[in-house]
């Protein structure tokens, strides 16, 4: 299989894929000893080739996606007869922001920052699959810990978590020894697949 054929396969998979297409998935489908780097560079070539097209390929949620460009959104909205507006309430966005930057985090810890009860909001975010249960914290009562999902990245058009706005400044402001903190947090996690 030459690279031209492989690129064709990738383009086709992008067209039919309902979710952002990951490199892993492509490797799995092609089922050949193809390096991830090769696939990645083919994705990048495709992105370049689409530069002049009405459609675009972009990196989102740890994968790649074939999608429209924002300059055509009015036409699409008229065609589909829909109106798209911001759908998350301020309370939901605030809760989501806290979870995104401080994950994994328990409900109590979020409430401590917002000083508001949030169980209803958490339920809504879980239903929308923007957050998930990541395990339980090893403290009294073993409260559940929450984190963001791949859908969260997709919903906000983020490539990965490090793509969050001002993440660097945020980390340096909150956790002085952030690397160590991360390790500690990892250690607190278990029953990872309990949901």
């Amino acid at each position, binding site marked *: 299989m030459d690279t031209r054929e492989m690129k064709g396969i990738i383009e086709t998979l992008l*067209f*039919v*894929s*309902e*979710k*952002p297409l990951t490199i892993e998935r492509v490797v799995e489908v092609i089922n050949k000893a193809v390096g991830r780097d090769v696939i990645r560079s083919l994705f990048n070539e495709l992105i370049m080739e689409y530069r002049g097209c009405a459609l675009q390929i972009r990196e989102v949620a740890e994968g790649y*996606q*074939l*999608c*429209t*460009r*924002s300059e055509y*959104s009015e036409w*699409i909205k008229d065609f589909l007869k829909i*109106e*798209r*507006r*911001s*759908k*998350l*309430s*301020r*309370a*939901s*966005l*605030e809760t*989501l*922001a*806290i979870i*995104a*930057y401080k994950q994994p985090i328990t409900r109590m810890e979020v409430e401590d*920052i*917002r*000083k*508001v*009860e*949030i169980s*209803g*909001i958490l*339920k*809504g975010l879980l*239903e*929308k*699959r*923007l957050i998930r249960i990541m395990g339980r914290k090893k403290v009294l009562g073993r409260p559940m810990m929450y984190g963001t999902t791949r*859908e969260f990245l*997709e*919903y*906000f*058009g*983020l490539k990965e978590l490090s793509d969050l*706005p*001002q993440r660097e400044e*945020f980390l340096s*402001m909150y956790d002085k020894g952030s690397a160590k903190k991360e390790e500690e947090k990892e250690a607190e996690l278990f029953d990872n697949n309990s949901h």
Partner: protein
Amino acid sequence: MDYKVKLEIFEGPLDLLLHLIKKNELDIYNIPIALITEQYIEYLDLMKALNLDIAGEFLVMASTLTLIKSKMLLPSPEVEEEEEGEDPRAELVERLLEYKRFKELALELKEKELAEREIFTKGGVLDVDSARKDQDIWIDASIFDLLNALKGLLETLSEDETKEIFIDEITVSEKINFIMERLEGEDFLSFESLFSHFRNKIEVIVTFLALLELMKLRMVTVQQISPFGTIRIYQAV
């Protein structure tokens, strides 16, 4: 008027404090605690008067404020005034700053969300619209902005014009219909114009409660162009 609005006011005491700080153009690092406490309690009283469900967190914050206020009144030892003795407000300020930061981050997320709404994919678009059955209220204007507007409105009405005779005759459901009728065929309604004909406090308050109920039912959204700007009421689409 035995009507209790169980509006889920997700906005909490920190929101109210930030609202007051912004409104009074105060320095967050040097909050005049007496002034803030007084205004904070005024809002709580107003919420109580409206029979709004006040979350316990609001009361906890009220006592925290009072505690800080009393600590500030204690004479500090003159000698080591500069160096020693932590400012009793320090912890509160830290809390406010942390929360404010997350509010800003939430705004950035919202911008991303809006940008993302302009891009379409073949399938797999996370359809939040259809999953949406929760009780979240989308308001650009916060509940405190509304209370603030209501306060202004009530202050312009003089006491003596209020005659209790009308009390039983005005109901929230009547006012709900009234608001929906006013919105019929209009893009939006300004907060002022909604209340402009009323001469009587009870009528204003009942209409206000009707507005909150409509927001809770997601039949209207309330938006503001700028903080403390004019409030507009939109029929929800």
